């Protein structure tokens, strides 16, 4: 039996959104050239509102200047999806995965990301589910749905980037300034809000990395220390 292909785990926390984006683009190109295996980048951003390619600016309920006044940057990015927020207390997972080496099906990949987040939530005693037609991971099945994790992906020559934002102890007040993901009936929640106590981000990162690797059929290994550019780009 051949061993499962490796998945390099790389923790860089905290990391500015733009720096992480640059780094992802670099990783995507390397992955396309097959210079590296699949990589799972785990990070946490300073406050930032990001607009996906399908974003509607009206879903930002305040001007970029007003949001800057609150300490958050606004960035237009190239992932799928609408508006979302990243910030302290939110675990962000960017898997750089060649779908050609897995399944050439971007929806199946979205479902895999959801499955990893659902498994992670369950690991901390929180029941989360999918909602038909609304990509992401939700709490409050049957009652008022609350979004625990958001998903937005970009695929370039079958290499996926961007990924999953999982609220652990995120200050949910940040979400009141946007129509998150363009879904008007979506409230945000966090693992802390659901469980009633703060959960360490490290523990959630461990669980999510394990779950994601298992669902993708990959063997989780630490990324080599000398992964080129990894730290050089991390400054900005």
């Amino acid at each position: 039996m051949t061993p499962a292909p490796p998945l390099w785990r790389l923790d860089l926390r905290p990391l500015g959104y733009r720096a992480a984006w640059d780094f992802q683009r670099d990783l995507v190109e390397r992955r396309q050239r097959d210079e590296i295996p699949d990589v799972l980048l785990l990070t946490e951003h300073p406050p930032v509102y990001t607009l996906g390619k399908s974003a509607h600016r009206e879903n930002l309920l305040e001007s970029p200047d007003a949001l800057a006044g609150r300490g958050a940057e606004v960035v237009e990015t190239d992932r799928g999806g609408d508006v979302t927020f990243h910030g302290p207390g939110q675990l962000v997972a960017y898997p750089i995965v060649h779908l050609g080496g897995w399944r050439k099906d971007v929806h199946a990949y979205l479902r895999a990301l959801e499955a990893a987040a659902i498994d992670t939530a369950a690991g901390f005693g929180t029941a989360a589910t999918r909602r038909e037609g609304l990509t992401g991971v939700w709490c409050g099945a049957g009652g008022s749905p609350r979004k625990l994790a958001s998903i937005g992906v970009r695929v370039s020559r079958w290499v996926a980037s961007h990924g999953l934002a999982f609220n652990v102890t995120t200050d949910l007040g940040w979400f009141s300034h946007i129509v998150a993901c363009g879904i008007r009936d979506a409230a945000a929640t966090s693992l802390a809000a659901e469980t009633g106590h703060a959960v360490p981000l490290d523990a959630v990162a461990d669980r999510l990395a394990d779950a994601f690797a298992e669902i993708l059929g990959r063997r989780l290994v630490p990324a080599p220390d000398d992964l080129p550019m990894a730290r050089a780009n991390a400054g900005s």
Partner: protein
Amino acid sequence: MPSDIIMPQMGESITEGTITKWRVGVGDTVERDDPLFDIATDKVDTEVPAALTGRLVEILVPEGETVTVNTVVGRIAAEGEAWSLAETAESDGEPVPADAAETDGAPAEAAPETPESPSSEEGAPPEPVRRQPRSSPLVRRMAREHGVDLADVPGTGEGGRVSKQDMLAFLDRREPAAAAPGPEAAETPPAPPAADTTDDVPGLPVPVPEPPPTAPVSLDGDRSEPLTHMRRSIADHMVRSRRTSAHVTTVFEVDMSRVVAVRAANGPAFEERAGVRLTLMPFFAQAAIDALGEFPVLNASLGEDHVVYHRSVNLGVAVALPDGLIVPVLRRADERNFMGLARGITDLAARARAGALAPEEVQGGTFTITNPGPFGALFGTPIIAQPQVAILGVGGVHKRPVVVDGDAIAVRSMVFLALSFDHRLIDGAVADQFMASVKSRLENWPEGDIKP
């Protein structure tokens, strides 16, 4: 001959994609594997690379448009191929031979899972010389499978393009028996001519077959713009609601003279105390909330095999916006006093118009009031906000001569209240009892009492 560029299928369950960006302009050259255009499907954006080095000669699907998988979105001419732009422009409105694109072969990489197999066509005898309208590979395949000549199918797309819907409609007409969806439809009595009329007839709802969507026809000088997110959401919700609930609307006429008098007598003092203008809306809201306490089945949600009776009344109040409609929700409206209702409704409406609602403020409604009256409508037949089961429409309050006290005629302030309810859950008698309760509460509003 240029090759078709098709909307690739990015996964098994993916049926359509939106072109978000053309990275190459018509007439520009592109290298094989360089990004040609970007597409969005659900939460994924994908860069589609060119399958060959050449020149983009035609863009058939502009940015912002959503098309089904395998639709031809543009054409690319291989390097060195003699294909002038002028020639393309000329052929633009003209039908092209149907076999042209097919024998050409779709670009392999841009179309990883295209069902079209170029080689299977090569040995086929040439089609008779008949001008063929434009269509997608999917439609051409359907035509082959059903032995249909595309020239016989009326196309509703631009330049007479035959869409999948056109083909389905054509096949439906040609094969009515085969098109019957199933045993349910067989039992369906003939549908009434207009689906709308079922709304106004309190009685058994009649299932109405869903008509195939008709593509809008765009003529010279018409303006076409993509839908905003809000408009798409509204459109989706409205259609889904009409498909989900068995809408029936019952209309009551209510004498508002007493409420109008109470408001006139207490308005100024109330406004000073509450800090908000006293409109008629909190009166309707209070009457509805009290009546919901009597008839909880109207404050419920219907699932497939169960009904949820809500403990609180979360009152949705529809607010018109310049470019749409939003329904903010006043939570636990039943726990508020009259002043709390008035303040809450005013606050939500103001913030809705300012676009300053938090996402949780537009969800979780259990009953909705809408107000189609301000422009003179007598009443409307509102559409239920899913998954609720009823919505109360308040018409305009107008002075009318009415017969009172036996045979006397008096001038009274009258209003029509229209309740749309889901007949799957609510019987007509219950809906009418609820409305009678609302009417009675409004007509007998305690003199001088606006519940502080």
